[in-house]
């Protein structure tokens, strides 16, 4: 008997990719997909504990007014849950410690990084050690990029993926680690799951293939368990062939490449007991 996969897509305060992220979970095989407004968690109407796959969608939490996802991270750290002693962040840590999966895309990735959930070296989920900041170009851009998946990475989401093509849509996507030691840890443990690359998969620092100047061309990172993953490109924006910018001139499979990331997560959850 297969286990039920319950996905939650968390919205509110400026997220805007929740519908397609939920749809991605659905077509990738999740049994239950709930789009849940943050206020429902804060009011205790919904509990993170009831789910096994947390999706943090893209958007502009609080307008990214204090820097991407900064005010959003502040809310996660300091919001209380009505009727409970716990803070929202405590629930989040419990979710992580239960070995459940979290995927953060774009603003969701920025949120994870600023909370410290990624890369969380040595399992320290409370201290920010990297950041995502303004693109070198100084501007928001929407463009498709090639991504090389690191086959040595423990990342569950990128399993069996070699090269992907996905859109980025951000103004603050430049990945910067706090120092060389952190970068070393990320490299050594293969936490860099995705890198901006040329079409042939060679990682690149060249604009616009590397759209933001990210250090080591890093587009996505995971934690040491590979169960927490964040990336700047949008897998939920490539679910169908017609999303591809050149679908009218290339022969492409019906299913978009982004689905694989969600399917990997869901298949993994189905294989485990939480």
């Amino acid at each position, binding site marked *: 008997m297969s286990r039920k996969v319950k996905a939650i897509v968390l*919205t*509110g*305060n*400026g*997220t*805007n*990719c929740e*519908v*397609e992220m939920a*749809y991605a979970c659905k077509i990738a095989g999740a049994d239950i997909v709930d789009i849940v*407004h943050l*206020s429902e968690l804060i*009011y205790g109407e919904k509990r993170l504990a009831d789910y096994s796959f947390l999706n943090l969608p893209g958007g*502009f939490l*609080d*307008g*990214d*007014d*204090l*820097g991407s996802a*900064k*005010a959003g*991270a*502040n*809310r996660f750290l*300091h*919001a209380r849950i009505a009727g409970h002693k716990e803070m929202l962040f405590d629930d989040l840590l419990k979710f992580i410690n239960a070995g459940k999966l979290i995927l953060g895309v774009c603003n969701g990735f920025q949120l994870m990084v*600023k909370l410290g959930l990624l890369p969380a070296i040595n399992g320290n989920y409370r201290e*920010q*050690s*990297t*950041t995502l*900041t*303004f*693109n*070198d*170009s*100084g*501007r*928001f*851009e*929407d*463009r*498709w990029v090639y991504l090389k998946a690191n086959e040595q990475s423990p990342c569950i989401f990128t399993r069996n993926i070699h090269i992907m093509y996905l859109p980025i*849509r951000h103004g603050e996507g430049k990945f*910067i*680690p*706090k120092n060389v030691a952190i970068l070393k840890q990320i490299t050594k443990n293969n936490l860099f799951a995705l890198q901006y690359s040329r079409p042939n998969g060679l990682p690149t620092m060249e604009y616009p293939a590397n759209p933001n*100047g990210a250090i080591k061309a890093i587009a996505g990172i995971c934690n040491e368990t590979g169960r927490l993953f964040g990336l700047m490109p*949008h897998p*939920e*924006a490539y*679910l*169908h062939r*017609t*999303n591809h*910018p*050149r679908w*009218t*001139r290339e022969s492409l499979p019906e299913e978009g490449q982004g689905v694989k990331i969600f399917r990997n997560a869901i298949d993994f959850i189905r294989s485990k007991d939480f």
Partner: protein
Amino acid sequence: MADRIEVGFKKGIRDALGEKTRKRIIDNFSLPVEEVRSIEIYTIEGNLSKDELKEAAAGPLCDPIIQHYSINKPLATEFDWLIEVGFRPGVTDNVGKTAREAIELLLHNKLASRKISVYTSRQYLINSKITKKDAERIASDLLANDLIERHQVIARNEFNFAKGIPAYIPEVLSQDKPVVEEINLAGAADNHLIELSRGKLLALNLQEMKTIQKHFLKKATIEARKKVGLTSNITDVELECLAQTWSEHCKHKIFNSFITYTDSQGAITIDSLFKKYIKGSTAKIRKAKGKNDFCLSVFVDNAGVIKFNDDYNLVFKVETHNSPSALDPYGGALTGIVGVNRDPFGTGIGAKLIFNTDVFCFASPYYKKKLPPRILHPRRIYEGVREGVEHGGNKSGIPTVNGSIVFDDRFLGKPLVYCGTAGFMPARLNGQLTHTKEIKPDDLIIMTGGRIGKDGIHGATFSSEELHEGSPVSAVQIGDPITQKKMTDFLLVARNRGLYRAITDNGAGGLSSSIGEMATYCGGCEIDLAKAPLKYPGLQPWEILLSEAQERMTLAIDPRKVKYFLQLAKKMDVEATILGKFTASGKFHVCYNRKTVAYLDMSFLHDGVPQLQLNAKWKAPKNNEPRFTELTNYNNALQQMLARLNICSKESVVRQYDHEVQAGSVIKPLTGSANDGPSDAAIIRPLLDSMEGVVVAHGICPRYSDIDTYDMTACAIDEAVRNAVAVGADIDHLAGLDNFCWCDPVQSEKTPDGEYKLAQLVRSNMAIYDYTTAYGIPCISGKDSMKNDYQIGKTKISIPPTILYSVIGKIKDVNKAVTMDAKCAHDLVYIIGETKEELGGSEWFALHNAIGNAVPKVKAASAIKIYRALQRAIENGLVASCHDCSDGGLAVALIETAFAGALGMNLDLSKVPYSGTRRNDYILFSESASRFIVTVHPLAKVGFERIMKGNNYGMIGEVTDDSLFNIKGLDGHFIIKEKIAKFKEAWQKPLNF
């Protein structure tokens, strides 16, 4: 006492904003600048302790990986000039608001009941040996808009490195007690009435003032007023409310005027252009469509509604925000986009927003002449508007899928900023139709979303006038997309739960307009303005009623459901306030603290405005015909054409808009081999599990107005339709929106050529009627902006009359959609439609500084035949690529098709179906309407030609894989032979900043 927290980048961390600013200073002023660094400043009021300040700074305000902070001392060290820019009092400070909320949450327990305020500003540290004058110029012409921002310029040797800049709080300080002014109109002389209208920025004419005067002298009026404690004097609340409701902006007085139109064939009378031509054409089309009529709600609501399929409806509206964008391009455009978002959102029961469109008309960003007073440089307007729409669209999570930028130096006085938004709603919800509105007496009136401030007061009347010396600063608002997003998230939940009965937006005219219009559904209302939540104290009752502060919706709620509505609002952190109730009293009844301050008959308020009587005289202009000789080679000429602002690539703007959020993107604005070719139209899938698509496109060609606005309008409609057809739209399921932007067409001392301009308007309307009925494409909504002039002193600048015609429609299966890029070598290249000697108003003539007279004429009957055939060919999968021919004609469409596909072409001009003087340049660059460039796989040739039979088309060559673009002229010699890369480069360069 206030504290300053400064946040800057650590040494060695790239400052992208600083670098961008440096580049702009160099580009705009040609000044040598070594480096610019930026510092964010948070000025916090509320007596936070040192530890609390530190906690705030180290927490939400600063990114510890790349930034550092200081408290009450400056971060600035090395610089030559320091420029600090902050908001003026009362101007929306979105970042300040977010910072305040973040600090409140962070210090929740410690703050207890203490209130704090946060104000933001930004420092630019400039390393450059420039003069104080240059530094001042940088501050006021680039970094700060003095209308809404204040700035300080400080030289290194003037700076106090120990203490920095003292904290400054831009607080609105108003001790004003709420007062209602009474004005005695009885016996007021004409000049007094005019003076009153001008002095209060009412924008009412003498006849209108006299109508008000007369109404207030009526016995019935006086007696009714007495009963509610009012004298016979009109209150300022009433006068302002009438001026807003009767404004050109809200009442469309010119479109509804009685016009006597004269041309060489005699005179006709028109009782309302709107009724006769626009409503008239739609009614005729709907009747002809019979049971295939897809219109659901036209001209009655905030936006038009059509059927998408049996289960869903499409909602679409396009607005302009020209006058505010002239004064504050960023805020004006941002408000334009988040403002038009609320139109479909406030239509029927409310629609989810699925895409934005934007079309801008600017003067050249390379404008070199001296600027008249109060006019910002076009480059600055361009950048500001672009950024405003970027923030408005991207932060709202609505993809910006279609648009264009049109250049003409007459847009110097007022830029045009068209913003459109489409919505999507289930056809039925909780058992009710969603596209209609119903309100019952005793329903409660609730305002939700943002608070009311002094922003946007007189917006409606201000945009009903030309930009002049006294144009009010208060008319400018700055939108807050996140407050709006939170509100729309909340309202969609409330909608789905059936918690409200009706919804409308607060745009121009604020509550006066939203409640005034809603009250017509039941016949009256009663509100108390003292209940309205304010951003700061000191607003007068009339200001509360008229304020156009953003992000607000007004709702009618069944009293039995109000509790649930308010609970949900609180939970989702959105403010909602009961202001009063709807009634059937026939009165627009406004109180302030239970005392009546306005008591107007609904019928007088909405139908009392006297109809304008206007004359229009048409005399076709006679422009000089240019004389220049034909060239033997067009390699350079085509590159020059491609580099023209109206033709060149707009990629740098398009890339900065999120055009694929919501994941339904099928045809993006950029397409082709390198994702950079110019798409003709956009297609999205609003339902991710369905292959049914929405098509959106537009047409705009103001240059043709210099010859005849009839043809300008016909060409705009045709361009919109053929753009939609080019990607595969179903022509039987297309609806249109007309957005008129005109220069003042009312004859007066200021406008001695008003009768001609009005004739231009009449002719444009005639074309709307003729072509929409010929194509069977009904207008479902639209808007007019009639005073796009600038007049200060002797300088008057009027825009060329401009119509934006937008179409929205459907494609049954997006898998059949076609893009404009050539696909394969050996594909055949066709020109569909006849090319005529129609270069009047063309880009080719404009390149020769001429207008000419032979404007493109649209032949509707042959055009619609082509469109139907092409639609069939596309549905049958016979078309590899299809591109519309418009600005720059055939040559431009061909080379765009080639370089977007990274392929060459071999073409023969003698194969082009053409009538006129046999000149290569005329064939290359004529802008005849209703034409396409189509490429077809050789195996599809027979099938394609069978379907196209009976239409005028020519097979003019083939696609090649040698990257060369070759065209043989009429005499058999090559007139163009060049690498496609060369043309692409010319096309990409001009606006790549």
